[in-house]
């Protein structure tokens, strides 16, 4: 098997060994083995990540940054080590550029409320794509509304690939921000963010990359793509819920006003006013999510050991196989690029006669977890003239036989509803 011979990481990419690390994969659902294909929503966690939480709470737990006692020093140290791991993972020049947030959504809102609030004025425009997640639409809509700025959409072709003929007229001298998803959570499309960064920088705009679906699945290098901001969530990359990352260019972060006020983000307070702390603390108000930062470090270690090149290759192979199998079904249409090399491991599809919701329930009866609905991308899903779609999405522990189970499950469901 070609997968098991890859080794850009320090560990052989062996799906069986990987599966053994995930306790939840032992669960039975309606008496069936769990086939978890809802990874774009959130991924499962290996025992190494779960253990890092247990270890933290059993051995280290304390508040950070101002403590002279041993636990506090250890907690502070581990918290910063985790930040450094994340910085290295995305090749950030400096670890102070890595800000802990709750999730991708908060990272995006942070930029909207600080950088964009300070830099976008009436008549300016913000460019996003027509395939964004709600979290990368609504903050900008609201800001544009408040400022009298304009939201512009980069269009895509029928197969979900951005239309670059359009792009250079959409992005113009009044563009202040281009905010685009690196990979669509519905279409699976991988967007050429480096190319968009160039277009943005050419007109003096800043580019924010919503990397919620890319950082977990492929090597991402913020310097290589020349991003200005990058946002992602730990829970979509083996890490815990409740913690995410905003990476930003040092000079931008330094100029930005703080987002929230209180606790660690303050250097000095008098009854009259306050002075902000240095980066990254300026953006981290109150007691941080220390335990989950530790666990995020553990998730990054796990992925780094596997090697992101190998993670990506595994998903590419599995996606190609799944596309082939799903497209072979008579009554199923797949949204997005039909060529699997242009997409990541997310496949949204609709069935001619079975509503996604009914399909979701029927697959669940067979132990197969997929997502159904608008996937927080309502305008996009509607543009395909459907109100909902079914979505299967893959990660490191998924296998070909799980794809077979999905395809078989769809056929069984057809049988059931045609009885």
């Amino acid at each position, binding site marked *: 098997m070609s997968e098991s011979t890859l080794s850009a990481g320090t560990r052989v990419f062996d799906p069986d060994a990987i599966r053994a690390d995930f306790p939840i994969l032992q669960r039975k659902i309606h008496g*069936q083995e769990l*086939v978890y294909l809802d990874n774009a929503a959130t991924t499962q966690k290996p025992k190494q990540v779960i253990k890092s939480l247990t270890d933290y709470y059993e051995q280290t737990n304390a508040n950070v940054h101002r403590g002279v006692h041993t636990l506090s020093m250890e907690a502070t140290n581990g918290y910063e080590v985790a930040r450094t791991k994340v910085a290295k993972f995305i090749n950030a020049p400096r670890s102070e550029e890595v800000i802990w947030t709750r999730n991708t959504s908060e990272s995006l809102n942070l930029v909207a409320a600080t950088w964009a609030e300070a830099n976008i004025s009436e008549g300016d425009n913000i460019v996003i794509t027509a395939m964004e997640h709600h979290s990368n639409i609504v903050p900008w809509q609201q800001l544009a509304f408040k400022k009298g700025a304009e939201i512009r959409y980069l269009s895509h072709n029928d197969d979900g690939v951005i239309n670059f003929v359009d792009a250079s007229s959409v992005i113009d001298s009044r563009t202040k921000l281009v905010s685009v998803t690196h990979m669509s959570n519905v279409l699976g499309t991988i967007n050429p963010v480096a190319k968009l960064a160039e277009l943005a920088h050419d007109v003096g705009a800043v580019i924010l990359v919503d990397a919620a679906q890319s950082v977990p699945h492929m090597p991402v290098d913020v310097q290589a793509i020349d991003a200005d901001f990058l946002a992602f969530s730990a829970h979509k990359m083996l890490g815990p819920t409740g913690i995410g990352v905003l990476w930003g260019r040092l000079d931008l972060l330094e100029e930005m006003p703080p987002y929230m006020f209180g606790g660690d983000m303050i250097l000095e307070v008098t009854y009259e006013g306050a002075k902000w702390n240095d980066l990254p603390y300026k953006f981290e108000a109150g007691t941080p999510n220390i335990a989950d930062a530790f666990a995020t470090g553990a998730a990054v270690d796990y992925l780094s050991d596997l090697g992101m090149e190998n993670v990506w290759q595994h998903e590419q192979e599995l996606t190609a196989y799944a596309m082939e199998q799903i497209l072979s079904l008579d009554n199923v249409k797949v949204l997005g690029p039909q060529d699997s090399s242009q997409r990541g491991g997310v496949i949204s599809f609709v069935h001619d006669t079975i509503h996604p919701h009914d399909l979701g329930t029927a697959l669940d009866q067979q*132990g197969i977890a997929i997502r159904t609905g608008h996937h927080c991308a*309502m305008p996009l899903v509607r543009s395909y003239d459907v*109100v909902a779609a079914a979505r299967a999405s893959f990660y490191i522990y998924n296998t070909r036989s799980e794809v077979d*189970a999905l395809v078989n499950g769809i056929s*069984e469901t057809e049988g*059931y509803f045609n009885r």
Partner: protein
Amino acid sequence: MMGGMSGLNEMDELYEAIILDHYRSPRNTAAVENPDIDLEVNNPFCGDEFHIQLKVDDCSISGVSITGRGCAISQASASLLAELVDGKSTEEVQAAVDCVRRLLKGEEISNEEADILGDIEALGGVRKFPVRIKCALLSWVGLDDGLKEHLA
């Protein structure tokens, strides 16, 4: 092989024959002329959306149309609703809505109420699938709101 038919039989309570029948052949879908109540309801999370029209004469329903798209449960439920209301008094309809609400919450309903509901009792199967209760209730809640506003 993972998966398999076995699991699907457990859905029989959800997808009773009567539900599938209403899903495949929805009743009362022809538009009502000059409706007194005309509204859209939707559940954006599932993408279900229905268009409800009622003609109300002297506190009784003299015409009804419900059309739209959604999952089997929401469509069958809408069709069952359309079938029920036709010719009923607004009071009877409101009592039935209340009764369906209680049925789906898993509360007891009386024998007389069961008689009034008839086929609609089949919706009760949704109780074992709590995430689908919203689908079953969508058109009922919408029609109830519309009636209340009309009668106010």
